[in-house]
């Protein structure tokens, strides 16, 4: 009658092993404590049941302060172990390794749009190779969604006003479910897809078949299309900050504060340029809110991340972009 039965989710990522170990620990510890309580309830209920012919009340039992403290502090100690263990796993799951490849994930009612750094796009499907860490940068076009791959044991909400991230490394080839787990409207249950893990060689083949311009290259086109270059040039008299080797650096602001130039900062600077003005510059930039799409923002950010010294296009560029793809992972 039932085709398959889900007993236990596959351990398909490096994170999954750690999460499952904690799960088993919790299961054993809580199971033992729960069984102890259940056994005592059951045993006392039988042993001290009211028997026929019993007269008078049972004797008084005095509370023991030592016992009270014992069963207050022992659970506390166990809880602290669980806390520390859980926090460690969480910390690692949200701090991607430096060499992780960035994949952009855009949620909208009711589909997942995914962009690979080399420019390949997918809808409701994510192809990744084994043995390499991938960092997902998530955002949403409308309401809150949540990117959930049970076999990887990872989960992260995609919010409409910022970027969130999570990373994973798949361990063996296979196909896994991708769910949206934050309720997002009518077809919430239909916002599902697949994560397809492939051997690295197979993956490379897949990439080559679908090669378009890289994300950074697309971003370069967008950068020129919106004439960003007229201010953000590398010239002496530029009216806006030079963007070369900017990503990941500390930026000093006009109001005295500082900010790290990460994806969220770049995104905000495009949509709300007046919010954080770099020291020494005027608030001249118009907003691009409503003009530039979320996908284009992602491309521009990839472009900015790729900029090395001297990479900024000339202000009067007519020639085609360079043949080689600029390097993607410039973050330190």
């Amino acid at each position, binding site marked *: 009658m039932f085709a398959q039965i889900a007993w236990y989710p596959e351990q398909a990522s490096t994170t999954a092993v750690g999460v499952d170990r904690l799960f088993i620990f919790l299961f054993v510890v809580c199971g033992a404590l729960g069984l102890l309580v259940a056994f005592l309830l059951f045993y006392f209920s039988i042993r001290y049941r009211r028997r026929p012919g019993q007269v008078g009340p049972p004797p008084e039992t005095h509370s023991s302060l030592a016992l009270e403290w014992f069963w207050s502090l022992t659970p506390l100690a166990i809880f602290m172990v669980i806390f520390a263990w859980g926090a460690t796993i969480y910390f690692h799951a949200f701090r991607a390794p430096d060499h992780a490849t960035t994949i952009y994930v855009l949620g909208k009612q009711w589909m997942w749009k995914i962009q690979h750094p080399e420019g390949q796009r997918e809808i409701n499907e994510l192809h990744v190779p084994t043995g390499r860490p991938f960092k997902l940068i998530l955002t949403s076009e409308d309401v809150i969604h949540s990117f959930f791959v049970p076999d990887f044991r990872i989960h992260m909400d995609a919010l409409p006003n910022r970027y969130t991230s999570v990373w994973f490394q798949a361990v063996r080839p296979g196909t896994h479910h991708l769910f949206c787990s934050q*309720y997002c409207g009518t077809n919430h249950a239909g916002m599902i897809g697949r994560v397809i893990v492939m051997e690295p060689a197979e993956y490379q083949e897949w990439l080559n078949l679908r090669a378009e311009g890289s994300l950074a290259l697309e971003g370069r086109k967008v950068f020129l299309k919106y004439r960003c270059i007229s201010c953000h040039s590398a010239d002496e008299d530029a009216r806006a900050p030079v963007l070369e080797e900017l990503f990941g650096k500390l930026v000093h602001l006009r109001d005295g504060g500082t900010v790290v130039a990460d994806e969220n900062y770049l995104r905000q600077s495009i949509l709300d340029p007046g919010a954080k003005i770099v020291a020494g510059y005027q608030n001249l930039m118009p907003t691009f809110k409503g003009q530039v799409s979320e996908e284009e923002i992602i491309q521009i950010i990839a472009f900015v991340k790729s900029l090395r010294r001297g990479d900024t296009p000339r202000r009067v560029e007519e020639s085609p972009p360079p043949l080689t793809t600029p390097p993607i992972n410039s973050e330190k």
Partner: protein
Amino acid sequence: MSTAILEPRFIPPPPEQPRETYLTSAYGLVSWLLTKDHKRIAILYLISVTLMFFVGGVAITIVRLNLMTPEGRLVEADTYNKLFTIHGVIMVFFFLVPVIPAVLGNFCLPLMIGAKDLAFPRINLLSWYLYMLGAAWAVYAMLAGGVDTGWTFYTPYSSQSSHYNVVPTMIGVVIAGFSSLFTGLNFIVTIHRMRAPGLTWWRLPIFVWTLYATSLIFLLAVPVLAMALILVILERIFRIGIFDPALGGDPLLFQHLFWFYSHPAVYIMILPGMGVVSEVISCFARKQLYGYTFVALSSFGIACLGFLVWAHHMFVAGISIYSAMVFSLLSYLVAVPSAIKVFNWTATLYKGSISFEAPMLYALGFVCLFTIGGMTGLFLAALGMDMHVHDTYFVIAHFHFIMVGGMVMAYMGGLHYWWPKMTGRMYSEWWSWLSALIIFVGFFLTFLPQFVVGYNGMPRRYHRYVPEFQVWNVLSTAGASILAVGYVLPLFYLLRSLRYGAKAGPNPWNATGLEWQMASPPPRDNFPETPLVVRGPYEYHLEKAQNEP
């Protein structure tokens, strides 16, 4: 009526069954609808929350039937979303939150502290009317047109995306919120100012302690929810972005405000249940409640710490890693007082003389299910685990173990415990055992499979799902149908007892509390003379009531 001067110092033994009870002191619908008597208001609440329980129950029955097959053929996706929203909104805001305080608390609190009524009887009646107004409004909005946001009303979905009756439903919830707020205010003032002479804080029954803690949460948390919902309402009406990111708002702010209420609200729901269980276990084991002070103070520990853990609902919502760690740590701290309570209830049984009437069966069921629910809470509070099981059926199962396995079990126990006091009649023992058993079995069958399917990754609020989850969903639906029978049965035998049940007498369980030292049902003015309390609430080894010298 006695005054400070004329107050008697000798307490007469309980009088003979008076001819007039609160039920017979006046007749007619108007005498009920305009009553200031806390006991009659409790009965009004009893009728209304029972009605709401079954409305919410019908909605979830359809949801569970729909989940029998992976394709979800029974209802359309939109209908499904409206149904689980009806279930959530009604069960949380119109059943779980008010049920024990407004029904059992209203009835018992003045009796337990030797008062003639609550401090503000008119406000008490106003609370009921507000509840009815809010309930009628919300139910109408959800049936005519419907709402599909889920009971959590997350922005920006609720503020910008949903096309249904979000505003009227929220108005209903806000109105009902004020009802709880006034109940809480009434309870706090009553407990402070209306206690009988000799009834010191350390002689208060645990049920009173938990009602006090619950009321504190009502007072501090309900206004926050009300304001957050009002802001969403204004955002929907004026299209100005308070929570909408397109206009500069922050959707996470809503989640913070919402959970600042809704997490303490789960303690609103469970704390009075813990109080009921403390009363029942002590009475049916004929033992003093073990560790009275710890049990009493742990209620306050829960109420205070409960305010500091709200963001554990948002571990994967985009809050910073470090604040997530703080909230995880605090969540473990709040688990300690609950553990203390479980151990003390168990220790109370030790060397007791235990009998197993229906209230005791429910209370033991409560301890068992609450323990499982609490332990799975430890899973969810672990950051690394929550990362996986967040928003899956694992959370649903955990929540229902606490709320249905804990809270509803405790409510059923309390209802069966005080039913003779409320009505003066005993119900059928055999049927009450049977229904307790059915509920227990049905409950396990309904919710244990949800843990499995949740760990396997089935997200909540899914109208259809992948085929390998089917077997667990079928089991769960089967359990739900058993559970439904268990919940319908008491309706029949309790109503039957009103006419055919044996007369209960003042103290059928031979309990020590003040509420048992008067006729059943109680007279209109509760105590003919204000009682003088001379000892703690659970001195069963003396076989003497709180006011017997």
